[in-house]
């Protein structure tokens, strides 16, 4: 496993790695990623910025095992993401996803939505409940646990999605425009919460965003343009 040095000079474990990753759609007609290479160290908060269609979401999907590269290697915690062999373990225990649209199941309650990943992973109900209450307390949703999704505000829904993503204690959080559907105030509140949770849970955060102000609050900024990554000298 590659060891990098953190800004403080301490060795930092690499948890995400893309090596010369290429990805295109429509039989190669639309090239989205053109030889992307970069690494993310454990505990970093990384913002992927760039215009729509530059490949931010595609990159997150590749790290989450939802898609596979045409060429190149994508590794998570030192293991190459193989859609057939490691995908379930990856999705159940190693990465959590937050999307622009909360993607919650509307007929279920907040509590039931959050428990879905624990059902998938076969985690016992008592452990799952304890974890849920811990997260609900941190996100200020304890009093809303029994509410159906339709009755929650946009910010509450996104906080619920955040809880769901962290239920199985993943060490990597992949957030695709997590505040993109929220107003400025809710957006800032949710993002602050995201950073707080990432810090307290020891989660590595990779976030695709258009919002430069939010991106500036991450400790690393990667610019994506024309299918390639450019890292500014300072974030």
């Amino acid at each position, binding site marked *: 496993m590659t060891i990098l040095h953190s800004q403080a000079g301490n060795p930092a474990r690499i948890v995400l790695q893309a090596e010369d990753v290429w990805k295109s759609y429509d039989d190669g007609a639309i090239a989205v990623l053109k030889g992307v290479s970069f690494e993310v160290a454990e505990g970093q908060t990384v913002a992927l910025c760039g215009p729509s269609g530059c490949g931010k979401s595609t990159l997150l999907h590749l790290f989450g095992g939802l*898609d596979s590269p045409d060429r190149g290697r994508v590794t998570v915690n030192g293991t190459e993401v193989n859609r057939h062999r490691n995908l379930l373990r990856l*999705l159940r225990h190693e990465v959590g*996803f937050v*999307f622009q649209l909360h993607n919650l*199941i509307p*007929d279920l309650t907040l509590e039931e939505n959050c428990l*879905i*990943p624990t*059902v*998938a992973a076969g985690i016992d109900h008592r452990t799952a409940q304890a974890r849920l209450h811990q997260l609900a307390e941190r996100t200020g949703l304890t009093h809303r646990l029994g509410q159906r999704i339709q009755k929650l505000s946009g910010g509450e829904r996104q906080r619920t999605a955040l809880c769901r993503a962290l239920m199985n204690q993943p060490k990597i959080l992949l957030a695709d425009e997590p505040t993109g559907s929220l107003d400025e105030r809710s957006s800032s509140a949710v993002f602050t919460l995201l950073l707080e949770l990432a810090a307290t849970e020891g989660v590595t955060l990779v976030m695709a965003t258009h919002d430069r102000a939010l991106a500036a609050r991450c400790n690393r900024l990667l610019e994506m343009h024309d299918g390639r990554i450019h890292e500014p000298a300072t974030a």
Partner: protein
Amino acid sequence: MIFFKLIVTNLRRHRIRSFISIAGIAFSVAAMLTVVTILQGAIGMFSGILSNDSEIIVFERNVSDLFFSNVPSAAMDEIANWPMVAHADPVLFGVVSSTDHPIITCFGVTAEDARIRKATWLTGDRLAFAQHSDDVVLGERAAEFLSAKLDDHVPIGHGVFHVIGILKTANGFEDGGVFMPLNSAQSFFHKEGVSSVITIKLRNKDDAAAFKTMVKTKFANLIALEDAEFTRSYSQFRILKATAWAVGGCGLLLGGLGVANTMIMSVFTRIREIAILRVCGFSHPQIAAMIFGESAVVSLLGAVLGLFTGSCLLVALKLVPALHGYIDASLQPVIMLIVIVLALLTGIAGALYPAAYAMRIRAVEALRFE
């Protein structure tokens, strides 16, 4: 619990569609239950007539229907004298009609026949049976629908008969039938010197195999079968059973198509939801289990509703006067179990393609789908 809620959530979300699917299965189950129960009951009753106080039935080999069987009286006389035979009762079956009833089963029997001896005589004297050629004894139901009383003269077929008794038996067919002296029946049906079958009671049941061999050896054109053997092998029964299950099966097939349609729609309308479950770590088998679970709930509810509807229908049919004595509406647990299992299998079959489709959904593509 959450998993089960994921299953039922979609059914609740599309209540009308779910109800139509459940109703489809329910009607299929009710149809199958009704047809199969009626025919099984009919077969059971007919078997009961043959096995009344006997273990073996002798009839003409290779006949498709016992009504066409001719067993000569000479054979009857010889068999009755075999030492292993406790008693041998010839029975001639015939069908007659009256003004309002196109089919009345007629039994030509001797006065010693168990059907006469063991029945409950509601009115009349058993010892008077077969004293005159125009005497008949009516089953309780037959007396009811013929509006006949003791000593009445009733037109049956092309003759008029004197009612010398009314009896009650445990068998619906017999209760709806007419008992004639064997000689009178032979004359009435132009079958002099023959009976349709001989029902045999052996002194020792262990002699059954030897008895059958003797019949085979002595009478090339006759066959002897034990009651259970006869019920299993009689072609009419097999045809009836096959028809009943085929009719019910067609009903279930239609119900299954309804479930398949519902499940396909169910999957198509929540592609994104299934993608989210995949992202949350649901495996292919878990996704399939959810779809199969949904169809199993539909099938199970349909089966329960169908069993209830079918039972009500059977009870209602039993109350129809014209069908008195011909329908045994008692539900057999085995049939109920088979029907439920078939309904579940139908539901599962109907969910095969939708489940396969759901498993093939690629989360990354579905998430782009708004």
